[in-house]
């Protein structure tokens, strides 16, 4: 059965996941944009565009002093996101996938670097989960979706790392689990807080644009 299952996740399963992901994401993001704002009749004091773009970039760097989130959350969150992106976009095997689907490719990073980025991402996620349990405020704020999205983001990292490092199961099983876990992530992403992978930038742009319009330069 294992070959048939691998074939399914590489074929039909992936088609379903891609379809749900794209329909869901395009719908949600476009719907968000089309909500529109009433035209402001005030005299603009600055450019919406430059303010918007600047904030999209600037918000990637959080000042822990000014943020209510605390050092730990900010730093661990940072490490996770960077580790996740490096692993996702710079592992040779992943680039081969992008090349096959999008026709685009770029140089891979050496495997040693990927190993480090994956371990950092996994470690940061575990630490964040523990913190969520231990910190009373975070624990009270968390609902099932927080744990669900944690698991959905964690599983691809874990199975991928096991696959590369030959841990636990055989290659076919791990490859099947890895692809399946990514497909679950894709299917859930548009309908959970994981949609922030796109909406973050829209909301940052919006905040920045409002300030830019008013001539506030932050």
């Amino acid at each position: 059965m294992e070959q048939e299952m691998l074939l399914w996740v590489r074929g039909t399963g992936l088609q379903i996941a891609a379809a749900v992901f794209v329909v869901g994401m395009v719908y949600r993001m476009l719907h968000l944009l089309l909500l529109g704002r009433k035209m402001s009749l005030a005299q603009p004091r600055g450019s919406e565009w430059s303010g918007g773009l600047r904030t999209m970039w600037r918000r990637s760097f959080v000042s822990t002093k000014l943020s209510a989130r605390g050092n730990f959350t900010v730093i661990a969150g940072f490490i996770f996101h960077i580790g996740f992106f490096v692993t996702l976009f710079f592992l040779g095997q992943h680039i081969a996938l992008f090349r096959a689907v999008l026709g685009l490719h770029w140089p891979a990073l050496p495997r040693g670097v990927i190993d480090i980025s994956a371990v950092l991402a996994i470690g940061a996620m575990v630490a964040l989960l523990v913190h969520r349990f231990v910190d009373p405020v975070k624990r009270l704020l968390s609902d099932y979706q927080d744990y669900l999205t944690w698991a959905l983001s964690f599983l691809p990292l874990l199975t991928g790392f096991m696959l590369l490092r030959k841990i636990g199961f055989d290659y076919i099983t791990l490859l099947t689990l890895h692809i399946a876990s990514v497909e679950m992530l894709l299917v859930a992403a548009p309908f959970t807080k994981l949609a922030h992978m796109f909406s973050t930038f829209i909301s940052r742009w919006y905040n920045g644009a409002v300030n830019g319009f008013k001539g506030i330069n932050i």
Partner: protein
Amino acid sequence: MKEHETLEQRLHEQGISRRSFLKFCAAMATMMALPPGSASAIAATLAKVNRPSVIWLSFQECTGCTESLTRSHSPALESLIFDMISLDYHHTLQAASGFAAEQSREDAMKEFHGKYLLLVDGSIPIKDGGVYSTIAGRTNLDMLLEAAKGAAAIVAVGSCAAFGGLPNAQPNPTGAVAVSDLIKDKPIINISGCPPIPAVITGVLAHYLTFGALPALDDRGRPKAFYGETIHDRCYRRPFYDQGKFAKTFDDEGARNGWCLYELGCKGPTTHNACATTKWNGGTSFPIESGHGCIGCSEPKFWDAGSFYAPLPAPTADVASVAKAAAAIGAGAAVAFSALDRAKKNKVQQSREKLTVDDLKGE
């Protein structure tokens, strides 16, 4: 037909020395990873056993499996298979033809009922009553069901007999299936590969003759001794895989340096077979040593697993078109629903009654 002579007599008649026979047994013992000392035990047993009657049925196949066995390097150990058994029926190899051939099959089936080994290569078409492949006016399906009844065990030689193979690939116009899809009450051993490694066929038969039982099988019915590991597990290019050094084309720098063929479509990581250790052509090499990735020929559905040259992470179905269609649907839905939202908003706005000072004054 008299009971078949022993292998020892047979080898003696053919002038094959005891020395090369022992060499053969030692090779078999090593290949099957049997404990030291088993070679002499194998030799002692093999020499004494009566050569079993073997009926070899060829169905929907290309004769590649028979070729693999008979064209193996001579005087290869593999060719000893024909001394170990009494091949009472084999399309390609028998001298008899027509009625005489079919007669010899029937005679063997009667005389050695319950004892003969049935070897099958090729898949069995079952669509439309199995009319797509017939021998002497009988369908393969019919012939297999009949021959299986008196067989002690069945050996499915090659990926077609073991898993359906090429005839079973999409869209499978003849309804081709594997032996194990049809026969449920006999021990079946699958020696998959397109073609299978000749030494593996011989090894399995030697094991059967020596121990009187089939070797340990994996969940696909394949002998674990040969299919227990993947090509990737034993590939000499593995260090390059682990370092992420991949050849990008068949003639780039990486290819010349012998880097891993993963991105050129190698299916070694998901393929169980003994190529990397047993090798081909009398131990000369195996495909990856010639610079071509493994195509996964010993696994079920390998024809349907996408292009042989597409890397493992590449989808096996068209994802890009699905994504494009999905984007159009998503965009359409977003536009439609925003229009609805706006219409609703306008309606509410229009139906709202204007608040006047009088309203606020109250009564």
